[in-house]
């Protein structure tokens, strides 16, 4: 499996010189499966560049699957700016959590409609369909996708994608320790545990430092200590900490990375790589898990080409 992080920020985009390295775009991860097909995890503002790169790479008949964990704005804001959605030949399936209150389509349409947007969902020229997910499993390309409700505010899913013996677990917004210390709970009483158990790669919420968390209990996000405890307990083989707080600058996150490594070592996590997610980073995992050599020039060229084609 190969992932590319197109947005790792939480809550609201945080562009600017102080967030250049970790990035300011909100949640979006592209996952390439062993058969070459792709899944898109969340549609925060990071999906805009993903879409441009995809369009810039030339025409493709490959269907697009977007797995939304939930419908908070930082996870859907990019949908309106996802270039393939404006191409008639695109086939897009959007998966997301079920709600007793309204259909997935109707809930997304609250954003893609007046007065927040200039077009309506039904006016998108692409073929867009919506699939509501409870706790279930299904297949996409060479992968088996599992979804499970996890602890956040409002209906929220975590996803696990298994493909040829390698697995990715994606829980970007998660507060598993709300109301009870994770260290004292049995496995089956921990939100997201089975989904993440033994994952080759765990992408998990780590929005707050422990000091910050004290003022944000119940907001649906993890402090560092809970993120590490969760990752350690599920025996993830590699961990990518995600959903950086918009107030956290590159300098702050660099310092946090050092603190995380020390805490991880103290927890007994030695040998398992843990790092803070960085926008535009690419990782191949499972097997040798070698880092991917980035080609920023080619990446930018594809995005520029996509922008040019979209504008014309």
């Amino acid at each position: 499996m190969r992932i590319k992080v197109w947005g790792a920020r939480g809550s609201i985009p945080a562009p600017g010189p102080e967030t250049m390295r970790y990035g300011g775009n909100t949640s979006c991860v592209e996952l390439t499966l062993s058969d070459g097909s792709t899944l898109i995890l969340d549609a925060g503002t990071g999906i805009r560049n993903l879409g441009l790169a995809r369009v810039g790479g030339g025409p493709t008949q490959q269907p697009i699957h977007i797995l939304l964990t939930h419908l908070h704005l930082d996870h859907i804001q990019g949908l309106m700016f996802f270039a393939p959605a404006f191409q008639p030949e695109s086939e897009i399936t959007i998966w997301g959590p079920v709600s007793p209150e309204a259909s997935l389509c109707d809930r997304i349409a609250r954003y893609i409609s007046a007065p927040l947007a200039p077009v309506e969902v039904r006016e998108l020229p692409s073929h867009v369909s919506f699939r509501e997910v409870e706790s279930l499993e299904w297949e996409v390309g060479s992968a088996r996708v599992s979804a499970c409700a996890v602890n956040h505010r409002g209906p929220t899913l975590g996803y696990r994608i298994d493909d040829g013996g390698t697995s990715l677990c994606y829980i970007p917004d998660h507060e598993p320790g709300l109301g009870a210390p994770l260290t004292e709970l049995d496995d089956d009483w921990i939100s997201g545990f089975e989904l993440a158990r033994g994952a080759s790669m765990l992408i998990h919420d780590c929005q707050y430092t422990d000091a910050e968390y004290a003022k944000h209990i119940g907001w649906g996000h993890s402090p560092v200590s809970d993120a590490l405890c969760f990752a350690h307990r599920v025996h993830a083989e590699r961990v990518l900490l995600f959903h950086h707080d918009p107030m956290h600058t590159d300098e702050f996150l660099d310092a946090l990375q050092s603190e995380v490594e020390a805490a991880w070592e103290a927890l007994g996590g030695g040998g398992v790589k843990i790092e803070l997610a960085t926008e535009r980073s690419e990782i191949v995992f499972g097997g040798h898990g070698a880092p991917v050599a980035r080609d920023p020039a080619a990446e930018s060229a594809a995005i520029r080409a996509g922008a040019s084609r979209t504008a014309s």
Partner: protein
Amino acid sequence: MSAQRPLELILARNLLSSISTPAFLVSEHGELLYFNDAAAAMLGRRFEERGVMALEDWIAEFGPFGSDEAPIPNDVNPAAVALRNNQPFHGNFRICAAGGIRRDVAASAIPIVGAGGSSGGIVIFWPLD
């Protein structure tokens, strides 16, 4: 892959563990999944000592009993009514605490319904003696 407990049960357990009102958490099949420290004080037994209990086991051990000391039928057992009818139910009865001590309590049961349907219920107790 085995499923985690339904999220609404996880959240309910976390809530019960944080309050000082005696409370039970039961599964949709009536298993006693958890009781909090306040309930432990009322019963004279800690959840960690008992663990998850089948419906017939916890009813035999804790009750509910009527004033005549006989087990009360399921059609007036708040937990059973809440689970069966998917509606809140309130009743007064006796429970059996450690050492065979009978205690009069009022109890309200509330069903828990998640996206996948009924997943259990909460029973909250108020000691009357």
